[in-house]
């Protein structure tokens, strides 16, 4: 069975529309194939479903019913509460503060890290100088070194320049740790561009920055989009750097979320917790569903060549 059926399918797809028999649609192979896929899909979809359902229930209903059943009475109160009232320690202004902090961290971090990395990649691809490859190799090896070995020296560095605990300190940290993968991404992209383009611009008298701004930037919009997707999701989802390099007033959303949900004080409000969790996951999820193939391209570019 297993040897025969794939060949009929493949033959059908190659021979065009005329080959396939209609009964094929419910063949044993298809039932097995789609059955398995749907079963595995349940594992992947279940947490999202449970989070949504829980966040729309009232607490009495959660205590009574089961987590898989849809809400009898839909209420958006948990969402409102998670956004504007949930407590971390003594502060009770909800996740909105963390959201604001995350946005204030995200925008400069993405801008700075991509600017630096694209210039690095451009220099490495088109303007190699003695030692440039050495620094690049160190950068790539550095991407594999556990962050834990560099955490404390960075604390000292940030203290020295007076940025410890501030949003800008974290922006610097994100730019530093985003550099290896992004530089690699841009370097590979710029290297693949036709060299004649660069030579022609040089003959016309354009310099380092002239070529970067007038030729490379306009021609590499797709890779900038890929880099942005990579960075926005990566920085938004960061927890480690946020918890170490900021103070409670500037905690990003992930850290605040963890503090809200895992706080020991008070009665656990599971619906509020799940609404808060969903709120935090919303930004990367939206980016994922909008960007689709580009997201896949981003992680594949980051992964396969890394």
């Amino acid at each position, binding site marked *: 069975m*297993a*040897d025969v059926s794939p060949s009929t*399918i*493949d033959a059908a797809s190659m021979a065009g529309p005329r080959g396939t028999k209609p009964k094929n649609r419910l063949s044993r192979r298809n039932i097995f194939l*789609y059955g398995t*896929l749907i079963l*595995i*899909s349940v594992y*992947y979809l279940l*947490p*999202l479903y449970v989070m949504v359902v829980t966040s729309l229930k009232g607490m009495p209903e*959660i205590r009574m019913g*089961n*987590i898989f059943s849809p809400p009898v009475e839909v209420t958006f109160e948990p969402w409102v509460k998670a956004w504007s009232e949930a407590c971390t320690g003594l502060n009770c202004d909800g996740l909105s503060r963390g959201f604001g902090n995350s946005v204030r961290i995200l925008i400069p971090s993405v801008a700075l890290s991509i600017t*630096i990395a694209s*210039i*690095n990649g*451009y*220099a490495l691809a088109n*303007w*190699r*100088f003695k030692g*440039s490859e050495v*620094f690049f190799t*160190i*950068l790539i*090896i*550095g991407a594999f*070194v*556990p*962050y*834990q*070995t560099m*955490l*404390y*020296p960075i604390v000292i*560095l940030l203290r020295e320049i007076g940025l410890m605990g501030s949003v800008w300190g974290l922006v610097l940290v994100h*730019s530093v740790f985003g*550099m290896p993968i992004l*530089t690699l991404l841009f370097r590979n992209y710029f290297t693949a561009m036709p060299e004649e383009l660069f030579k022609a611009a040089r003959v016309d008298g354009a310099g*380092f920055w002239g070529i970067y701004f007038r030729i490379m930037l306009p021609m590499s919009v797709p890779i900038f989009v890929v880099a942005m997707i990579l960075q926005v*999701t990566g920085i938004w*989802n960061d*927890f480690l750097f946020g918890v*170490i390099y900021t103070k409670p007033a500037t905690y990003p959303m992930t850290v605040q*979320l*963890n503090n809200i*949900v*895992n706080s020991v004080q008070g009665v656990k409000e*599971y619906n509020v*917790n799940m609404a808060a*969790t969903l709120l935090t*996951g919303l930004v990367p*999820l939206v*980016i994922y569903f909008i960007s689709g193939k580009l*997201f896949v391209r981003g*992680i*594949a570019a980051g*992964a*396969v060549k890394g």
Partner: protein
Amino acid sequence: MWTSSHGQIDRRIATPEPGLSGLHLICGEMDMNAAKRPNRWFRNLSAKVASIPMILTALVVFVGGTAWTVFYSFTGSRLLPKVKFVGFDQYERLWSTRRWMISIENLAVYGICSLILTMVLGFTLAALLDRKIRFENTFRTIFLYPFALSFVVTGLAWQWILNPDFGLQGVVRRWGWESFNFDPLNNPDLVIYGLLIAGMWQGTGLVMVIMLAGLRGIDEDIWKATRVDGIGLVKTYVQVIVPMMRPVFVTALVIISSGIIKLYDLVVAQTNGGPGISSEVPAKYVIDYMFKAQNLGQGFAASTMMLVSVIIILVPWAYLEFGGKKHG
């Protein structure tokens, strides 16, 4: 400036195709001679200036930071880093601490299970999606979306599903199976598998995408040849396709293992190391000792051990990957 950049373009052209550009090379030499000698440093100046952030990151943060931590792991630093050498004392203390041993054991169990399961599941999913099915995009989207979510969100979601009173266990018990037991997060022996369920949920999509890219790169002729030879489907995958995808598997292996060593956020969110210290991991040990217990020396020693373990994983890989390429 102008002369100096002139020298640069000629060198650039000369390097990749030495046979072709003898003339350029001579022009470059003439320029060099006409200008003053020390210009060598200023040649390509813009590129060097633009690379300063990269150079600083590489040297100060990556090399300097790592060396600093390794150096201070041999000191008795507590609240503040102090140069008071204690030899290997910190390491001796580390390896006789129960919490560190549990952390290592947890990471080993999590790592091995996660490696095997992620590879198997990732490859299976990729192979299923590669069978020219309908709704391929829908399924791929479903399998990959958790990867867009943070470990904190992942951990909190699974913490709720695995809640003994209201979660999976509670629901099954309310259905009438009173003795049903599934409470990994409160059982010291099973808690690491509770983390594994969540970690797998988040990470397999990535491996699937990598594997799928590898499968798509396999020549259609290979499939035709195995069909002509009458080799079964499972046998084809195991004996023909998987060996052909060795580089893809190696890449996936490196990515998964470097991710496993970093395991931290998930544990903090889902169990916070509990119950007791039964789900502690090395990364959390480091951070707790550095920033909570104010025992910097221990933290440095533990993080140096993490670095050593990465080197043990990476060096053979780099040797195989780059050492092999030179010959091939």
